[in-house]
């Protein structure tokens, strides 16, 4: 048996964060599709929506404002907020979800026993439970992403900030340039509404937008301290 060297924990190298500019979001759902393809998220049909058994790591919430014909559609893409003070983490009895030193709220699939406490405790409804074994049509089986585990029945899953891409970019302690890689949703966004990056890097695009005067967090009063900020939509006629 090898001896275990005790090492001091290293200071965090990254703190991943995201800023979503709602002024730019058109609610096109490209992020939803990109995420579905990248992260082996099972395909939702009408029945799963009606049953409330949908699995989508990012969803675009739609709110109507005003009465017809003076009506405005507001869109809010909601993904796991990677809260620094995450309500989901403290209720997991098996330590399957925890905060890693890069500011990510992490889900370890092989530890999860499916109590669903975390999903219950998430104020953003960002955690999805696999009520059934995921099935893909035969001709789509070869498009599954080999870098991402296919989750089985009975475990919780959620947005990982595309950790497989983070791992690939930072492997071996490599230094990453700002915008060198992006999660699938950010990459797919046609209006560039989403920005992802390292908040510890002061020059990164996301750090500069982080302090924007339009920036707010969803359900900020809960004190969950999310790593996702939204930039408020500003109406020209307001």
């Amino acid at each position, binding site marked *: *048996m*090898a*001896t*275990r*060297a005790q*090492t001091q924990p290293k200071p965090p190298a990254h703190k991943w964060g995201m800023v979503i500019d709602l002024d730019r979001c058109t609610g096109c759902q490209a992020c939803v599709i990109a995420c579905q393809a990248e992260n082996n998220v099972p395909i939702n049909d009408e029945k799963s929506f009606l049953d409330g058994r949908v699995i989508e790591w990012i969803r675009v919430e739609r709110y109507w404002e005003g009465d017809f014909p003076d009506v405005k559609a507001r869109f809010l893409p909601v993904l796991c907020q990677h809260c620094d003070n995450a309500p989901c983490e403290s209720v997991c009895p098996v330590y399957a979800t*925890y905060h*890693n*030193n890069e500011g*990510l709220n*992490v889900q*370890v*699939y*092989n*530890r999860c026993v499916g109590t669903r406490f975390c999903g219950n405790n998430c104020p953003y409804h960002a955690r999805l439970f696999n009520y059934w074994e995921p099935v893909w049509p035969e001709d789509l089986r070869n498009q599954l992403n*080999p*870098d*991402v*585990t296919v989750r089985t029945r009975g475990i919780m899953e959620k947005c*990982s900030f595309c*950790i*497989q891409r983070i*791992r690939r970019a930072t*492997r*071996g302690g490599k230094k990453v340039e700002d915008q060198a890689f992006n999660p699938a949703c950010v990459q797919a966004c046609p209006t560039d509404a989403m920005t992802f990056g390292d908040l510890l890097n002061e020059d990164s695009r996301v750090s500069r937008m982080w302090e924007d005067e339009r920036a707010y967090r969803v359900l900020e009063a809960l004190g969950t301290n999310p790593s996702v900020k939204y930039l408020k939509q500003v109406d020209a006629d307001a």
Partner: protein
Amino acid sequence: MGNTLIKIAVPVIGLAAALVIALVGYFVVQSWWSQPPAVLGFGDGPTQPIAFPHTVHVTTAGLDCQFCHRTVSTDEAAGVPAVAQCRFCHDFTRITGEQSESPTAEAEIAKLIGDLIEGPDPVNWARVHRLPDHVQFVHAPHIQQGFSCSTCHGDIASMEVVEQVRNLKMRDCVDCHRNNEAPTDCTTCHY
């Protein structure tokens, strides 16, 4: 008379049963914890569709691992060469006469030619090294940190049939990561 027989038989059968249970138990625990004990062919590598001898290619031909497993230092998988790459060398060695002329070797090499029009199908190699489920293992950083292939795969150069030498269970990985100050965050491997 019957009583004496029972008096002898009961402890003998009992002992034999205990022994069998202990052996099976040892086998199961050992397989679960590490690798199946190398008895009755359990530790042997699988039979491959082509009896490819690493011994000849590494020792006699002097090939480096990366000559065939080309993506090992850049990608997740080390990569198994395409049949075309096997053919590239073997067409050449047949002409120069460097190729073994033993009938068994000839028969194995002939499988690379396949159908004359369609060409050979990709070889359906049997997987030798199995990791536990839910692990994303990436070769590249390990090679880039200077570990040799034999650290995990053993002395492949001397294996006629490749077999797994290290159990590659999580404890094995984590011990090595700790000793080399590599990250031990769960999401290093599990995502």
